[in-house]
């Protein structure tokens, strides 16, 4: 138990749905969610497939702890070949959809093919139907959720859907659930759009069972106490959200600014957690209304924000006057520091649009910042932008482009290409700040060396959620390492990558890992699931998953040449802060990393490694 034991297979081309037993042997080797979904994808598609072709598949996978009382046990993952990257894509989301799917009795939904016209999938426990979505096509995530609940006369339905961005092929479209929680990265929503699948609507009332309740209760209680007693998960995240990082990272000199030309942002204090909590002179309210939790989460890091009604972005637009999902650190950075915009209300509005139309604020903000650099060097002009003065620091340009890109209109259609294709189109591919086509998140690897290796080797392209060595290099979790040193970082990155894969596959939130280690997770999994889930087994599963993802990418045609960083980070030294004069020394870390992984100097897992991991 822990697992529901069932997969829902949906073929959009044929218009069929069917129930299949979960492969329990694979569950023992890949646990669930990220790991198990990747195993299914690897077995079922040719990794060389065009991500937007009907032959690509799209998986929605819960973990064995999803829908249980384990803290943060409400998560699901969307797994596919990424539209943005052409690599394995695996995007995790919280909110309430994951629990609902598990409560309907499904571990996973596998979506195949392409529907002839727009459809949505309606799942009520063990009954599933494909229904026409022509009237939903062309509408936002927010409208889609409301319309489906109204149509079925059921406000308790939980929905994961795409907005117009996903329909229009914006390369970094997300799948959004519960209005403002998203499987955000790598273009998983773009793949959903290419299949003509607008939404998955689920109502689940069957319940989730576990192996040994007494042991489970003891393990989850103890683990919750660890979260409550930890300074980050017990105080920092509930009070400030991930935005707790804004000032910390800026002071560390690792805050990418203006497309990574700079490494510290003079306006950081205006878009920080502290700024969000300050009362505005205009209406006496703070941007931050309160914190909120995803299903089952005892941390509750979520930001719920309200925009100043007199702000230019929402004047005469009452639909944005209510509270909704506010700025997390990544969004505040990408939409703010990276574009040089320090107008908190404008960033919040752009973030609302990203949620409403389903696009990843990291890749969107980073692509806008790349476009701003193209504009400033004269590679594009107002002729291309449709009259927009695309200068760093322009809140008006940011707001306008959020609206256009969300709908795939005007110059927004080009911003929707992502920065790799956009910068190449205008002759400056070096200005793409990302890896494997995916834009960097909010840490500059010149100031945090381990993150350079993290980005270069991340299986889904540049990402902080695959090995968050910031925890060690800046915050001292589990122990402090020097952010400017390269020694020991290969081992650190590997250890974080393997443990993270195990956390993700259990169905819990990676933010627990500020406080939890696998010592806290394993007993919870063990009490919920059959099989002897020790820390060692969890780690082995994590390492197996990492290597499986690597195999997918190699089979898709990626090579060691793709494990690199943009020239700017390898050649242009940081200008200010503690890292002044430094570049990222990837070359010092990468060979050691390959060796530690048991991979050849070309980054290919050796036969011994594969045999050791039973791959």
């Amino acid at each position: 138990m822990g697992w529901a034991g069932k997969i829902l297979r949906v073929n959009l081309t044929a218009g069929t749905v069917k129930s299949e037993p979960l492969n329990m042997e694979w569950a023992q080797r890949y646990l669930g969610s990220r790991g198990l979904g990747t195993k299914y994808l690897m077995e079922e598609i040719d990794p060389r497939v065009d991500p937007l072709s009907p032959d690509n598949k799209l998986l929605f996978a819960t973990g064995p702890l999803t829908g249980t009382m384990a803290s943060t046990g409400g998560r699901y993952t969307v797994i596919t070949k990424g539209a943005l990257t052409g690599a394995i894509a695996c995007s995790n989301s919280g909110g309430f959809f994951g629990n609902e799917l598990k409560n309907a009795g499904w571990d996973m939904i596998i979506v195949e093919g392409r529907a002839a016209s727009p459809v949505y999938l309606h799942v009520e426990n063990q009954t599933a139907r494909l229904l026409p979505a022509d009237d939903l096509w062309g509408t936002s995530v927010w409208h889609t959720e409301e319309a489906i609940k109204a149509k079925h006369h059921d406000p308790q339905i939980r929905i994961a859907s795409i907005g117009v961005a996903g329909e229009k092929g914006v390369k970094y479209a997300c799948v959004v659930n519960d209005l403002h929680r998203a499987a955000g990265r790598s273009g998983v929503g773009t793949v959903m759009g290419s299949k003509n699948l607008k939404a998955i609507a689920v109502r689940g009332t069957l319940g989730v069972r576990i192996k040994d309740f007494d042991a489970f209760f003891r393990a989850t209680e103890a683990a919750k106490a660890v979260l409550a007693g930890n300074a980050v998960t017990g105080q920092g995240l509930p009070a400030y959200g991930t935005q707790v990082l804004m000032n910390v990272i800026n002071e560390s000199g690792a805050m990418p600014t203006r497309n990574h030309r700079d490494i510290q942002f003079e306006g950081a204090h205006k878009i920080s957690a502290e700024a969000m909590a300050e009362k505005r002179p205009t209406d006496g309210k703070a941007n931050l209304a309160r914190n909120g939790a995803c299903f089952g989460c005892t941390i509750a890091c979520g930001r719920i924000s309200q925009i100043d009604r007199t702000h230019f972005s929402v004047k005469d637009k009452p639909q944005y006057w209510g509270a909704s999902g506010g700025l997390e650190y990544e969004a505040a950075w990408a939409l703010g520091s990276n574009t040089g915009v320090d107008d908190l209300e404008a960033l919040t509005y752009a973030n609302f649009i990203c949620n409403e139309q389903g696009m990843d604020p990291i890749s969107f903000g980073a692509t806008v910042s790349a476009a701003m650099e193209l504009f400033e060097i004269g590679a594009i002009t107002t002729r291309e932008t449709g009259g927009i003065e695309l200068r760093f620091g322009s809140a008006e340009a940011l707001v306008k482009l959020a609206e256009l890109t969300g709908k795939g209109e005007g110059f927004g259609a080009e911003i929707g290409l992502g920065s790799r294709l956009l910068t190449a189109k205008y002759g400056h591919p070096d200005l793409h700040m990302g890896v494997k086509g995916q834009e960097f998140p909010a840490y500059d690897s010149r100031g945090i060396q381990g993150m350079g290796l993290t980005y270069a080797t991340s299986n889904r392209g540049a990402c902080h959620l695959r090995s968050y060595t910031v925890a060690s290099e800046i915050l001292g979790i589990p122990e402090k390492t020097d952010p400017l040193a390269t020694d020991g970082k290969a081992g650190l990155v590997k250890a974080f990558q393997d443990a993270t894969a195990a956390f993700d596959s259990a169905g819990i939130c990676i933010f627990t890992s500020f406080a939890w280690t696998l010592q806290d997770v394993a007993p919870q999994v063990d009490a919920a699931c059959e099989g002897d889930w020790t820390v060692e087994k969890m780690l082995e599963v994590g390492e197996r998953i990492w290597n499986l993802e690597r195999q997918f990418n190699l089979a898709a045609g990626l090579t060691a040449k793709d494990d690199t960083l943009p020239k700017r980070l390898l050649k242009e030294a940081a200008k200010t802060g503690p890292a002044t004069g430094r570049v990222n020394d990837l070359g010092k870390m990468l060979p050691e990393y390959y060796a530690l992984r048991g991979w050849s100097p070309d980054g290919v897992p050796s036969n011994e490694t594969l045999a050791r991991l039973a791959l």
Partner: protein
Amino acid sequence: MQRSLNIDPGKCTGCRQCEMACSYENEKVFNPSKSRIRVFTFDAEARFVPYTCTQCAEAWCMRACPVDAIRINLGTGAKEIHNDVCVGCKVCTIACPFGTVNYNADTGKVMKCDLCEGDPACAKACPTAAITYVDANWTGLDKMRMWAAKTDSAMTAN
């Protein structure tokens, strides 16, 4: 001493640990749809409101039941459904002004909060103390204390 659930929506984060605890306590499965306490999210207003039976002294549900399936637990003061007696007629669900008695189609009986025989699972599970189990005679104590703290002792009535 009788105790009451005391709910403070201002502290609630909407995490649903209470719903899972309640469903497990009553159904031996994690299933929020079978919880006797429900948390409502008012998204645009940034509010989370947990809601369940307040155990009215003169309970409408109890008075409406034609077969006497709802009885007072003298220890806790809870109005409890006796499943062996309940015929599933749903009259109590109509009688309750607050909607906190609901039909369970899986069992053919109704369900409502029974205070877990004096050891409420929801209150134990709540990470923010939005649900506490306090002296039934002093459910206002927290609010009184809050206002007392704001009262200036030097302030006089004139």
